[in-house]
């Protein structure tokens, strides 16, 4: 015969086990639901990227086919005057612009390259005689531009579906310091980030490398040659715990997740 006291203790032990087992089952269930939700969100993101990727490659393919036709005609051409290709080239370039308007306008470098190409071909349009030496560089440049635009388009596509977080500090040099914690696209440059949080004016130098952008004003604060004050940028180095001066143009500096960046308006050489 089991003693009543032993039965009570056994019941208490069973209650402990039941309580913990129930809690554990609930924990497991909630975790499963959470993982399932996260998995669905990630699957949707991947589907979005995959569909966008297919679409982007499809558009690139159409332009490449037109380009290929033009290139074929160009190689088969044996006469001296290449002006008959100018109109086709203008059409091809316009198609490129129409298909990738947002991408081109979103990148100062691509916009500059596109406009240069368009200006160059418009100049040739006015000429009666167009030589091979005049036309061929434009034809080759088109292919490079198309590749750069498509690469940027794919980069933007990833950026639309995932984000990184960065910190940006704007130090106006008069005691006013503003911090921004911003979500932005992977692959975005410091220039794009600054453009995202502040009203900016900049100058674009085609021949300056790496990076072509020189920041002129941020939120209305313009360079002061009389005082020798300009905008400079830095990034925060976690290993050495100090700000490191940015040697390249801000449009050539790709942001990293959780990176910290600073614009400071100061006299060159001042710490």
């Amino acid at each position: 015969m089991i003693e009543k006291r032993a039965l009570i203790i056994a019941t208490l032990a069973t209650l402990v086990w039941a309580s913990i087992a129930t809690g554990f089952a609930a924990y497991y269930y909630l975790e499963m639901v959470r993982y399932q939700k996260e998995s669905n969100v990630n699957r949707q993101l991947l589907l979005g990227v995959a569909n966008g990727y297919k679409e982007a490659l499809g558009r690139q393919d159409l332009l490449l086919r037109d380009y290929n036709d033009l290139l074929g005609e160009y190689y088969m051409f044996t006469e001296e005057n290449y002006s008959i290709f100018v109109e086709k080239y203008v059409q091809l370039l316009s198609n490129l612009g129409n298909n990738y308007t947002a991408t081109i306008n979103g990148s100062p470098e691509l916009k500059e390259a596109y406009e240069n190409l368009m200006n160059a071909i418009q100049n040739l349009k006015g000429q009666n005689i167009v030589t091979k030496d005049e036309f061929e560089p434009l034809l080759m440049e088109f292919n490079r531009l198309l590749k750069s635009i498509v690469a940027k388009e794919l980069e933007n596509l990833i950026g639309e579906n995932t984000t990184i977080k960065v910190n940006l500090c704007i130090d106006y040099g008069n005691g006013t310091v503003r911090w921004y914690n911003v979500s932005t696209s992977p692959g975005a440059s410091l220039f794009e980030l600054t453009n995202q949080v502040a009203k900016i004016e900049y100058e674009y130098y085609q021949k300056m490398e790496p990076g072509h952008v020189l920041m002129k004003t941020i939120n209305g604060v313009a360079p002061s040659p009389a005082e020798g004050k300009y905008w400079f940028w830095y990034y925060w180095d976690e290993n050495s715990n100090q700000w490191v001066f940015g040697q390249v143009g801000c449009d050539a500096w790709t942001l990293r997740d959780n990176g910290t960046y600073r614009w400071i308006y100061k006299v060159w050489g001042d710490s």
Partner: protein
Amino acid sequence: MRNNNFNEASITLISVLTALCLAIQLTPRPPNVEFTSLFTFTVGFIFGSIVGGFFGGFVMFVNGFLSPWGFAGLNMPFQMAGMSLMGFAGGIYRKFAREFASSNFLMEAPILGAFLTTLYDLITNFGVAVLYYITGTPFSLALLTALAYGTPFSIIHVLSNAAVFGTLFFPLIKSVNILVDGDNK
């Protein structure tokens, strides 16, 4: 065993146990590994349910403000209620306790410790659920979430307290009895 009249030794002992309890409670330690439950249960066992209940409530009240895990906030009343229950149960158990040296008694202590710890965790997890509810979560979901996500901590708490009760309860009450009554049974 002790007589029911409180003497200086009893009051001193309760004060020392309270200080010891708080010192251990406020010392940085792994989450949910604690000795307060054992001390509270023991105080209830030696001095009765009322003293045990007050002892547990007071320790958790002070702990609620000074704990290394931060201010207990809304959960403090639930922690006090849970620990008071622990002390109260010590007094109840005293009425049904057998000879200290019996093997049954040694088996009962860890199971009682585990059971009371489970009750304490259910009460404090309920407090967390109330907090979730106040911040806008539907009550059933808040309760499910609080109980479920409290379970991993609860497992550590129950297992550690079963071990603490199993190994320390018997030597502790023996020592305390000697101190209070000079009764060296």
